[in-house]
């Protein structure tokens, strides 16, 4: 009995504690409400003498440099564009921090902040030539390691301070600092970039650690506001969590409410607003990112015009959910825009460290047993395209002669018999008691419908697929430790194909590399090394084509599908240029990106007109634009 009695005070204790915690939370949240604009407009209070200044090189840049600039590439903004309006976007979750570096900073929102940070130079999204950003002129050093830049003297930080060569030297100092808690950046800015040499306030050189082709892709760093950060110290991560850092781009954060929205305001007197490639762009006065946690709710907001644009790439939205009054009455336009950019190598990666996939015939048979065409036709509504190989969309670097292995029962038969397998009583191939049953790992629910169809079709070919959906992080660990048989996944892309990380033996049979197929082929290794070391563009292109052929021949990657376009729905008062986007555009309504962003504008007259029509519940002709300027040929 004594036990029972003892319990009562304990329960009481809990109640009291809970009450205290709740009231504390309540008080805290009330306080938070009032301080909603923390961090904003807190300018740097760094003493003048503490500001970083790089050593000035006495020698000056080499005399025989050939200074280049680019003012002849075609413009892609519309001269009709007008300024004004507020553009509303949705984001899935409120950013965990406004830092773009350090813990928790790698979120979808980071691109919005980074989009407002210009670099030395940029790339023209259609021609892929270098275009000026903060630098007006650039020159390549003879050592193929160094690039020289002349800065635009009118370049300003958002707080009015001029952007100078010291800010670029400071970037190196900043990125190498231990206090930013970003090992990847520490490493990158040490291993890839050797030093920044300052000749005067507006002339500098950036030197890479090794000679390499396409040097400008590595060397064009951005500036870091040294007058804002001053001396870095312990506690950087916490101190700068919610600070709004001065930037060089067209917009700056002007208002936030934690957990609800972030508002960006256009700089009326932005220093670069009349520059050739920035003219008539970044037209909207305010860009608001509102937190909407769920797709279905976002769709409802969009239909109420509380959000201005909605991504309709998934077939379900384009074909089914589009049957809604706002679209049928022509208040909302839909656009299907084909872009021509690098495609993620999405498909099935076969682990050659597993006994079953060591045999090339079995790998080929597996590829021929995947009825991807049926998936595309019957599940993906013929909206997706067959990915032919892992390196589509790299321009001359892509080998368009390679065709993925098609579903073909005879070929499966041929290769399996060649490998010495026989069909078992259940129709599945077997050899020495091992059935041709393969475990397929994948990380997202959205792939399940595709995989169940693949599984049923593979059965016909005598191949059994076991589907294993795992939580992304577990799934990643399992792949890193090479415990998978096959995995369905994609990778990000960079401007040039990167073969070494995915197919070189240096990265095979090791944990945590991108060589998930554990490909180790001496001949391929040689080609990849030659590709990496070559400084000659034509040679690199030739090698690239050969490497892709070899990768296809090894057959450890079964490419599935790609989406060579974007589809969006937008309210009709938003206007786009005649060619609404660029070859590289991943959204037609990106507000910031220095290459592809800010092409759209707000048409007040159309807005008023539409509002009147909607009030009267009149109908307008529904509009679906299909834009194929950049459609890839297959």
């Amino acid at each position, binding site marked *: 009995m004594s036990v029972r009695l003892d319990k009562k005070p304990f329960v009481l204790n809990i109640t009291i504690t809970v009450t205290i915690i709740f009231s504390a939370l309540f008080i805290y949240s009330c306080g938070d409400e009032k301080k909603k604009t923390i961090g904003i407009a807190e300018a740097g209070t760094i003493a003048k003498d503490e500001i970083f200044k790089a050593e000035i090189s006495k020698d000056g840049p080499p005399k025989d440099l050939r200074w280049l600039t680019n003012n002849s590439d075609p413009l892609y903004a519309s001269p009709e564009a007008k300024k004004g309006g507020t553009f509303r976007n949705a984001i899935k979750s409120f950013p965990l921090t406004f830092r773009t570096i350090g813990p928790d900073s790698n979120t979808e929102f980071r691109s919005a902040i980074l989009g407002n940070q210009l670099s030395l130079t940029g790339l023209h999204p259609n021609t892929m030539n270098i275009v000026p950003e903060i630098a007006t002129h650039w020159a390549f050093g003879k050592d193929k390691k160094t690039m020289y830049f002349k800065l635009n003297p009118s370049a300003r930080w958002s707080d009015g301070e001029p952007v100078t060569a010291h800010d670029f030297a400071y970037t190196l100092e900043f990125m190498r600092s231990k206090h930013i808690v970003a090992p990847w950046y520490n490493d990158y800015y040490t291993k890839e970039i050797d030093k920044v040499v300052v000749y005067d306030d507006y002339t500098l050189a950036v030197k890479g650690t090794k000679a390499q082709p396409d040097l400008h892709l590595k060397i064009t760093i951005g500036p870091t506001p040294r007058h804002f950060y001053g001396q870095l110290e312990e506690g950087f991560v916490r101190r700068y969590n919610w600070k709004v850092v001065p930037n060089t781009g067209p917009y700056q954060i002007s208002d936030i409410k934690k957990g609800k929205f972030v508002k960006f305001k256009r700089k009326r007197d932005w220093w670069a607003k009349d520059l050739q490639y920035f003219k008539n762009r970044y037209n909207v006065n305010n860009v608001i990112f509102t937190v909407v946690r769920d797709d279905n709710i976002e769709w409802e907001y969009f239909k109420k015009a509380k959000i201005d644009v909605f991504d309709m790439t998934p077939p379900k939205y384009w074909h089914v959910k589009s049957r809604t009054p706002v679209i049928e009455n022509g208040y909302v336009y839909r656009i299907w825009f084909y872009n021509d950019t690098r495609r993620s190598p999405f498909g099935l990666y076969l682990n050659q460290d597993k006994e079953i996939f060591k045999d090339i015939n079995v790998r080929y048979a597996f590829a021929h047993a995947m009825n991807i065409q049926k998936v595309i036709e019957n599940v993906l509504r013929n909206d997706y395209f067959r990915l032919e190989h892992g390196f589509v969309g790299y321009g001359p670097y892509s080998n368009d002669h390679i065709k993925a292995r098609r579903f073909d029962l005879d070929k499966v038969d041929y290769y399996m018999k060649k490998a010495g397998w026989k069909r078992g009583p259940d129709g599945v191939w077997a050899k020495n008691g091992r059935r041709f049953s393969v475990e397929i790992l994948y990380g997202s629910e959205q792939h399940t419908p595709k995989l169940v169809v693949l599984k049923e079709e593979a059965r016909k070919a005598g191949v059994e697929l076991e589907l*294993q959906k795992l939580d992304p992080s577990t799934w990643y660990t399992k792949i890193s430790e090479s415990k998978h048989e096959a995995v369905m996944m994609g990778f990000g892309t960079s401007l040039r194909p990167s073969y070494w990380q995915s197919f070189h033996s240096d990265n095979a049979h090791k944990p945590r590399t991108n060589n998930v197929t554990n490909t180790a082929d001496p001949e391929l290794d040689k080609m990849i090394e030659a590709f990496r070391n070559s400084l000659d563009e034509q040679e690199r292109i030739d090698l690239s084509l050969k490497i892709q052929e070899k990768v296809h021949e090894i057959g450890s990657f079964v490419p599935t599908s790609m989406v060579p376009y974007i589809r969006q729905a937008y309210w009709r008062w938003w206007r786009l240029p005649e060619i609404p986007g660029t070859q590289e555009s991943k959204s037609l309504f990106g507000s910031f990106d220095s290459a592809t962003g800010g092409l759209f504008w707000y048409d007040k007259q159309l807005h008023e007109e539409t509002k009147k029509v909607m009030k009267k519940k009149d109908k307008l002709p529904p509009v679906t634009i299909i834009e194929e300027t950049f459609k890839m040929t297959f």
Partner: protein
Amino acid sequence: MIFASLFAEVLVNKRAIIVNYEGKYYFPTYGDMIPGTTFGLDYKYETNYRQLSVFFETEGDGNWILMPPVPYDAYENDLKEDQFPPFPPSMQEKHYLGTDTVGRDIFSRLIYGFRIAIFFSLLLLGFNYVVGVSIGCAMGYWGGKFDLIFQRIIEIWSNVPFLYMIIIISSIMVPNFLMLIVIMAFFGWIGITWTMRTVTYKEKAREYTLAAKALGASDFRIIFKHILPNTIAIIVTFAPFAVSGGVVALTSLDYLGFGLPPPTPSWGELLQQGWANLDAWWIGGSVILAMIITLMAVTFVGEAIREAFDPKMHTTYE
């Protein structure tokens, strides 16, 4: 229902029950797969019996085929040209409840899903009861320190958030049928323990136990021969409700995506699809209806058992 579901292969299957081809009889339901070439077709993979039956009819050679009432299994995708699933119910195509988002027959998935769910919860019940009843009895019978220590252990154990544990475990590895039972039983045995402890305490104090003890019966004998039969009414009464609890638990885990791996037919997964495609009313509608019927049936059975085992009628004092 359970009994009928055991023969689901005969009732709901893409394989035919009987095929008569050139005078020979084939029974493809159970056993190895029969390739298309056996029946004079031009492919080596598993025969499509629905097509075969159409083929036989047009040929008219006296070959015939007997298909199950629902000629689809739970995995195959019945896709059509120029149309996209989910397809609404159709008597003509024998998709009595329509198809799901990848063209699988819903009726078929309901039946097979039911079989999995009900056996899952029966087995889970078994595990829970074996562990729960023995520990509960032991606690009640011996009492004292043993009881005290186990009480604390159970209190701690029952504070472990069960759903989170399952979510964590199944995100690390994909659980199979048996493993899921073990995981759930790991946390599920607590409920019955408390009841058993109390009941055993009560029974222990009765004269017949004392008598048995006086006669020199062993603890083991007293617990299993004397006390357990007298508490059976309580155990049995709880059982049906535990079964329906098990079905609901598995369904909700599948709904959240932490249950059995796809493409296992499961009610939870159908429910999830129904929610995501509210305009395809037949998906959500059929699952909800099926759940109502099953859970109601289980509850009615439970009520009946409770009445049948009324302790006033069935107390045995040996």
